């Protein structure tokens, strides 16, 4: 069983990489101005701070995920089952929803939108 502190650390790491992805998305307009980019190249939002896996995602899909503070995008197999459940399988990544309670509360508290 995962400790509360461990779960919180995972949640904060995931929230951190969600924040980084938001910043990549923010500068994406300038990237689009430099080159034609039909897809966003973002980062896995899993709880491992050493993860370097990229996530290739359509901007419209990314917006759908970001519209719900409890949703995160992670590389296949990077799910932390104690704090989240897979709600969608996509090519190259999965969408996970934070479990209700502390994981969801933390996700909402750190939502950059």
């Amino acid at each position: 069983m995962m400790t509360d502190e461990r779960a919180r650390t995972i949640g904060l790491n995931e929230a951190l990489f969600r924040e980084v992805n938001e910043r990549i998305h923010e500068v994406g307009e300038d990237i689009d101005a430099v080159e034609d980019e039909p897809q966003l190249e973002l980062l896995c939002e899993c709880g491992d701070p050493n993860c370097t896996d990229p996530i290739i995602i359509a901007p419209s899909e990314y917006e759908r995920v970001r519209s719900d503070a409890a949703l995160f995008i992670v590389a296949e197999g990077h799910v932390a089952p104690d704090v989240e459940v897979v709600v969608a399988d996509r090519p190259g990544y999965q969408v996970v929803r934070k479990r209700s309670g502390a994981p969801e509360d933390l996700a909402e508290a750190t939502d950059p939108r």
Partner: protein
Amino acid sequence: MRRETVARPAGLRPSPPDAMGFSTSSREQSFSVATRNERREENQRTFQRANERLHDVVEGRLPEDKPVPFLCECADLECRERVEVGLTQWEDVAEQTNLFLIVAGHPRTDGETIVDTLGPYEIVQKSDGGDGGR
């Protein structure tokens, strides 16, 4: 302030709690401070790694002088303030592995000193020459 729960070396008994219910031996306090500082250093390394990823994704795809919203590399893992500098400016700091770029006044780890400023930001240096995870 919540006390840290730390692994206790064999043979070290906890001191009786004080009126607030905390153990107060100086040995325990030193463990607590060390753990807190280690955690703050790890927070900074986490921010550095995140900024490395951000840098790698946008490198070569943005004008050099376009400000990039990097993360403040302070010691507070919940900090989400921005350090908006150009890629080259960030690289100049990042290439020196014991330097961190933070919003002025944000928390640092013990022993870090401000060695320069970059606009409204501070460049802080770890005194132990740690590689900062880069």
